[in-house]
């Protein structure tokens, strides 16, 4: 159009752009949690890990000037928090869900405390790759400015799917998750497998946090996560512990988050609270449709404390 606007096309474009922009933290956290849960443990603390990752990435990027160092720092912070969770859970008679809640509060609290001086400064951001060079529609070009981390996340999903099915490590994780006794009989330490799985899960969740503070929305503040970590943990359950479904679910959540603002921008102004709540309504709907009193969820690892 002559005035540079694209009218109603804004909505599908925003949902598409939002799916790419907003989904990355969901994707990393849910893939991380997928690994942890497949080993037979739930780490609810990933919300705290996400926020700690965001804070440490921002801090390191600000101090060193290199956003990639920040991403690495976020991953390491996440792995350490994962190790803490796994360490506590390896003690006898410790409930992993309770530890997860404690670590969620610990992680967010610590991040707010250490992140206090980071709210004001501006840190170096992650670069974006311009995939929209072929288009002369500026809106599309903006939506196609994609961050490498998103592509990495998209690549990890099929890789994990393949690894769970065909590699030795995948088999070990699944064995620990399905039957701890079988893993022990094979001569493996279940606790060690779960420690590693939780650390890898934390590493990925930390990187998801670095995306929030270093790319989009792109600065550190205390409202940054607003529950995205905990949403991503729930997302694993209705993605049936399947990495590929985690990918689609994350994209759907990202798109749903963009729906509310996009509809308002084209003039659909009534009920914006409802549209803003779209991701949560989606969660509830899927949970209700898929639940059954007669059986446990298909695909649920048998060792999980919620299915046992």
């Amino acid at each position: 159009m002559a005035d540079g606007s694209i009218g109603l096309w804004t909505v599908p474009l925003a949902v598409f752009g939002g799916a790419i922009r907003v989904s990355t933290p969901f994707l990393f956290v849910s893939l991380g949690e997928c690994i942890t849960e497949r080993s037979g443990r739930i780490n609810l603390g990933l919300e705290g890990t996400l926020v700690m990752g965001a804070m440490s990435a921002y801090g390191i990027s600000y101090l060193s000037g290199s956003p990639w160092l920040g991403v690495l720092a976020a991953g390491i912070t996440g792995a350490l928090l994962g190790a803490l969770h796994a360490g506590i859970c390896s003690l006898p008679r410790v409930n992993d869900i309770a530890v997860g809640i404690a670590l969620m509060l610990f992680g967010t609290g610590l991040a707010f405390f250490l992140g206090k001086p980071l709210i004001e400064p501006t840190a170096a951001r992650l670069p974006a790759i311009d995939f929209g060079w072929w288009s002369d529609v500026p809106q599309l070009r903006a939506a196609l400015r994609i961050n490498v981390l998103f592509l990495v996340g998209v690549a990890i999903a099929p890789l994990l799917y393949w690894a769970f099915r065909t590699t030795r490590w995948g088999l070990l994780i699944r064995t620990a998750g399905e039957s701890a006794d079988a893993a022990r009989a094979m001569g493996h330490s279940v606790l060690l497998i779960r420690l590693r799985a939780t650390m890898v899960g934390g590493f990925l969740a930390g990187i998801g946090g670095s995306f929030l503070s270093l790319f989009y929305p792109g600065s550190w503040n205390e409202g940054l996560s607003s529950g995205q970590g905990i949403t991503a943990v729930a997302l694993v359950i209705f993605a049936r512990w399947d990495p590929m479904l985690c990918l689609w679910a994350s994209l759907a959540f990202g798109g749903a988050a963009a729906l509310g603002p996009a509809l308002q921008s084209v003039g659909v102004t009534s009920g914006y609270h409802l549209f803003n709540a779209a991701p949560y309504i989606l969660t509830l709907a899927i949970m209700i449709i898929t639940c059954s009193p007669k059986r446990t969820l298909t695909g649920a690892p048998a060792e999980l404390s919620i299915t046992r």
Partner: protein
Amino acid sequence: MDFGRISRRHLLQGSAALALGSTLGVRSAAAAETTIGFIYVGSRDDYGYNQAHAQGAAALKKLPGIKVVEEEKVPETDAVEKTMESMINLDGATLLFPTSFGYYNPHMIKMANKFPKIHFEHCGGLWADKDPKNAGSYFGYIDEAQYISGIVAGYSTKSGKLGFVAAKPIPQVLRNINAFTLGAKLANPKATTQVIFTGDWSMPVKEAEATNSLIDQGVDVLTCHVDGPKTMVENAARRGAMVCGYHVNQSPLAPKAYLTGAEWNWEALYPKFVKMITAGESIPNFYRGGLKEEIVKVSPYGEMVSAEARKHADDVKAKFMAGNYTIFKGPIADNKGKTVIAGGTDRGQQDPELEKMDYLVDGVIGATA
């Protein structure tokens, strides 16, 4: 936060000693010091609402004989009552500034009834005659500064489309949106303002999405009314749009995109309040003012603001300073075509009707519900 608690424990010991001292008839020298408590709903360095108040608190810290205690991230629930009680009982605060909108009723009113000798000054509330006399509310007519921002935005936009990222459709927010739009229409009668409500005061992802959606619609100048404008300012600047700031000066975040902005000037107001108290006067229960009273101010213009825009904005600013300019001058129609202020009616800044605003003026694209 945790350091605050440690010092509070020391203060508890200190005040116990003080109480003991006074029963023995020995007045402590510390009585000469006035303690003032500031309560913020968010973080003190958020480049926004809370930072503006913290700058005011910082101005008080420089005054002799004044001690400032602060607590951040206090939710608008019973928690703020506990904070107020502990500031009064443990820190010995005699003047409190609970700065967030939702602290006023019932929380601050309840505390004001409970502690009749303590002064409470609330930002944004509507003090009425039935409320306790030791409580007061103050606020700035920041719509005057938004009006100036609107004029500058109207000259600067190429598409004629302005964007407003807003939190909730409450009167203060609607008044800012309307003033911004009316200002823009002075410069460009065809200008429109597209508004997006995010639903809450601090929603960084929603604010970023709203910013992107607006720019996708062809909006090229944005402003906002949320607690921390940093997300909007940075994301808009990255997309090559221009911005008008809010709460404090955000030009360090986007020096090339920052046109001007509507800022609070609490660092001028709070020392005035303290002077009134030390002089033995009482602060008026209902205190309001705008540019003239130095409660709000306008950010310095960015370099891309044209000479024409500067001149027009400065002219209007001069009229505000002289105290003879009305923004909401009838006839004004809302964006559904209904007349909300009849021709010949001037709603001056002090008009209480304006504090009940529930409409968006003609030129705003959006709805209040």
